């Protein structure tokens, strides 16, 4: 019933305010659509369903590494990850999700620091 296609377009939700005061620590929330098939489940025929998970989530701010997640199969499906970021100057925040097959989904947001 649920599909596990070879190539998946990930749907992404990011909550990052458009502008923030300098030196404020912002909580950034992200949600991405991915079944995170652990590889431990069996289908109706008793066969193992192959593992299909995200491999990593990587965030940079003005080119600097802020946060990274290396996923295990124990992260729940449709991963929700919230992390923090200290606003210094206006610039780009890049969000990158990498799937286990190497496919990358990248989203770029502008953060204005007042």
């Amino acid at each position: 019933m649920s599909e596990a296609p070879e190539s998946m377009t990930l749907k992404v939700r990011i909550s990052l305010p458009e502008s923030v005061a300098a030196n404020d620590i912002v909580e950034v929330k992200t949600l991405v659509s991915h079944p995170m098939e652990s590889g431990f489940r069996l289908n109706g025929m008793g066969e193992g369903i192959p593992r299909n998970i995200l491999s990593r989530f990587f965030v940079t701010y003005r080119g600097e590494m802020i946060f990274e997640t290396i996923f295990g199969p124990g992260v729940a499906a449709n991963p929700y990850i919230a992390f923090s970021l200290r606003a210094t100057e206006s610039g780009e925040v890049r969000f990158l999700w990498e799937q286990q097959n190497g496919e990358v989904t990248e989203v770029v947001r502008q953060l204005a620091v007042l």
Partner: protein
Amino acid sequence: MTSRRLSLMLLFALVHIMSPAVAELNYEPSAELSSEPGPEPSPESRSTAQTKAQTKAKQGYDYQSSDVQSLQDDEFSNPGMLWVDEGRELFAQPAGADGQACLDCHQQPAGMAAYYPRINPRLNKLVGLTGQVQICRETHQNATPIAYESRTALALTAYLAFLSRGEPFQPVAESLQADLGQGRDYYYQRKGQLNLSCAECHEQNAGQYLRGDLVSQGQSTGYPIYRLEWQTLGSLHRRFRSCDIGVRAEPYGLGSDAYTRLELYLRSRSQPLPISAPAVRK
């Protein structure tokens, strides 16, 4: 006091002191439990039982733990919203041979979901929201047909249902009474090896525990739902299949007439609950 009595008292005190460890395992759900052990649903008392259920209609949300409730409440991180986002995009996207988008015909999609299931005038039969999406896709957009539980169908259904959030389903029209009656019959019909009808659990025992599960009223206003057990968004018909399999009855197909009529009946008994899609359930 004899030493025997003293030792018994000490043992009693110890058990009492240790009970917090055990109490941790006792779980009080956030919902008030309404136990309504109603009468056997004989045809005559059906309407009474129905009125009872209607006057105390409670959505599935009220039967969930606070963790699950907060997942649904947080519109940002409600996993079902991922499908709503996709549905919003798909609705505006040209599809099929003529490159028509849903939006081209349906400029005001808000509120549509509250009218389903309804009679499709061309086919002159009862069709649910997802069924209509499938029909539109194939007939009006001339696009590749989509499966009932496919990602596209779920996304579009989730989006349309989400647009009707906060409103109750429309009252069932006269023209639908025949289908409604069949849906009602299905609801009260005992089935499967376990010989249970929907009413046995969801009317007579709503608020009681079935092993570790708190039985809800089986309302449909939250659908399509993100079910933690499925780890994905799923349709009402998928849930019907799970229930039928649960009582060891042969389930019907997704989008089948039987389930669409049942869906109609659930719509009628959900008054005055508002649509709350996409809901989160365990």
